[in-house]
């Protein structure tokens, strides 16, 4: 057995060296392939969520560019995973050229990583694009990519907002208006009726590892997550809003308290009548639900102004040298063309950040006519606000505290008032 083992060893070592040699040669960090500048584009889009669109866009860009070649890298585990990989790269002294930065990481990113604001690159090398950003993007959208010091870190790219998906069949069965509830009060009533009349759960509000939907719920009632750098969500309005959700789960027992994928799964297979989650889930829901499903606008609180945090990410330029930075903008400009934006929306369900895409003929006009479900999300664009990221180094810890109290409240371990007030105090201590 031993001589065989030795032979195996030698053989494998040889094979492995060959394989290693192969991949090393490819990895040889030459930023110039022939004449073209090669840049890395880091994204989080899995096959099920835009991965194909990324491939197509990158391929088409590479075909038409004479100066730049883009290599796309997929980062598992969404924006958090991308951040982890970015850290490892930075620790090793390297960085890609263009990255998608999730909103939750806006401040952490701008405080700790080397980046260059897109306008700077434009001003230095692309005078013809000087007013590109001003012309094509609404101010409230561009503001999304400004950090807590007001600096324009990047450009919004993937944009989502929360919508209410409804199971029209279940609503009809319960004798309710099949156009769905318009206010949060109606959501509670509808939910209760559905549970009584059909036995199925009435409502689910998404519970990922972030506070996005919670922010929509609270801020639409007039509460503010942060005011002047301090946490202020435990106001009367905030408590009232949270109370409604809690009561639906614990008192009416009409809403369900589940992790995100299980909650969405239960909506799709018809066990929950309404689901409040991101428009990015549209194709997953639309393709697999066997009932009459619609997506309607986020409910409001009486007459108050709805405020919805933007989901998704922005594109930032992390390239260090000039040639890479120029190539980065060339690629980004391509991604922001009307056709590319349309393709992106069609492939992901994200809403285009650029203002003229929705109505353009070569944009989304026909697509929207056929796809009713996107309408609500696009119509809500004017009430989009930045997704709150707590400032400073303790920002992510603050987010975690909110997640912890969510489980405590919805699990019935603490009252809404006590939970929110305690957490608000703790967070403000952290933010110093």
């Amino acid at each position, binding site marked *: 057995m031993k001589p065989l083992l030795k032979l195996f060893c030698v053989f494998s070592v040889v094979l492995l060296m060959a394989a290693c040699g192969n991949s090393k040669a490819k990895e040889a960090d030459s930023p110039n392939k022939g004449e073209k500048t090669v840049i890395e584009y880091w994204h989080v889009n899995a096959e099920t969520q835009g991965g194909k669109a990324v491939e197509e866009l990158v391929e088409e860009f590479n075909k038409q560019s004479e100066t730049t070649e883009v290599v796309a890298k997929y980062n598992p585990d969404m924006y958090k995973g991308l951040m982890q990989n970015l850290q490892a790269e930075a620790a090793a002294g390297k960085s890609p050229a263009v990255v998608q930065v999730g909103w939750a990481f806006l401040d952490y990113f701008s405080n700790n*990583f080397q980046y260059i604001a897109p306008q700077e690159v434009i001003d230095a090398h692309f005078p013809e694009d000087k007013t590109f950003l001003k012309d094509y993007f609404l101010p409230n959208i561009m503001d999304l990519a400004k950090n807590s010091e007001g600096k324009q870190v990047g450009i919004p790219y993937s944009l989502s907002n929360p919508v209410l998906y409804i199971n029209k069949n279940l609503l009809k069965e319960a004798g309710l208006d099949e156009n769905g509830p318009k206010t949060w009060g109606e959501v509670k009533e509808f939910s209760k009726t559905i549970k009584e009349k059909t036995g199925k759960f009435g409502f689910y509000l998404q519970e990922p590892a972030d506070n996005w939907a919670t922010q929509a719920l609270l801020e639409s009632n007039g509460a503010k997550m942060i005011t002047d750098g301090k946490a202020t969500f435990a106001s009367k309005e905030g408590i009232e809003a949270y109370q409604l959700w809690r009561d639906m789960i614990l008192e009416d027992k009409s809403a369900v308290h589940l992790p995100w994928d299980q909650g969405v799964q239960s909506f799709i297979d018809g066990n*929950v009548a309404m689901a409040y989650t991101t428009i990015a889930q549209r194709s997953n829901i639309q393709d697999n639900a066997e009932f009459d499903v619609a997506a309607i606008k986020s409910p409001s609180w009486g007459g108050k102004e709805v405020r919805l945090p933007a989901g998704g990410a922005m594109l930032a330029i992390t390239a260090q040298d000039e040639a890479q930075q120029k190539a980065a903008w060339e690629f980004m400009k391509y991604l922001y063309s009307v056709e590319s934006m349309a393709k992106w929306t069609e492939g992901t369900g994200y809403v285009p950040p650029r203002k003229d895409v929705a109505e353009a003929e070569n944009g989304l006009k026909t697509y929207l006519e056929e796809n009713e479900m996107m309408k609500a999300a696009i119509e809500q664009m004017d009430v989009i606000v930045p997704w709150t990221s707590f400032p400073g180094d303790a920002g992510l810890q603050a987010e975690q505290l909110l997640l912890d109290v969510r489980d405590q409240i919805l699990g019935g371990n603490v009252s809404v008032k006590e939970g929110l007030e305690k957490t608000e105090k703790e967070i403000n201590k952290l933010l110093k």
Partner: protein
Amino acid sequence: MEAIQTFAKPKIIKDHWKAYLLLIPSLVTFVLFMFWPFLYTVYLSFFDWNMVSPTKEFVGLQNYIDVLKDPITYKIFCNTLIYMALLLIINCAVPYVLAFVIDLVLSRFKNFYKGAIFLPSVISLVVGSILFTWLLNPVSGPAAIILGWFGIEMPVWSKLDGWVITVLSLITSWKIFGYNFIILFASINGISREVIEAARLDDIPLWRIFFKIVLPMSSSTGIYVFIITIAQGLQYVFTPIKVITQGGPNYSSANTIYHAYHEAFVLYRTGHSAALSILTMAIFLLLLILEFKFVERGIHYEN
């Protein structure tokens, strides 16, 4: 003591370089990729760092103090103990008994059982976690539907204290049960048949045979299974925790391994995470020392 006593002194000097030669490959790997990072982590535990910024702020023992003062730390240590207990029962005690039963009590279908039991071990826990999230969906999953037929409503296990640790332990056990079982079976199978037969002829009840004969004679493997279930079990549970609950609800499912990861890679509190890791390791090393001192003696090695 395995030192071969029949040899004269000169041989021992010769042994030295041979021994080190044999140990060098493992040693180098461990030094570079285990001990060096460990020392680096000790170093990091005295700083406040967020993983990326070029400056680290020296804070002395503050991280350790924070960890020891934090009530969450104790909840997590408690969870870790519960995980260990559950994992040991399911993956050490139970396979021991079952391996014994298959070897000495049953006479048919043995190979089928063995093969089938090992099967889940080849599957990754990532796949397992995704699979069980689907299967155990309390509202729409197959398990919930079947329980529904009996009028039982499935508890939302991923949001309930106690339930969550139990289910995550079961999911992890699904994978590691098979390997432990096979190892223990091989060991029990290797016990001389004559001794067992003699005991049987003497009408000694099976449970006595298990405790007085089988257990001691397979103890070298038994202690191995015991230790790796603790060490690896805790590391394996990490995957379902990460995929399904991320330590929630409110840290009810986090153990020290997961929490150290969470602190470092989700909250970017590197120093804090390092302190937690060092404290955890200190405790495990203590347990390991105890094992070396007391248990190794009691283990049966041939003659």
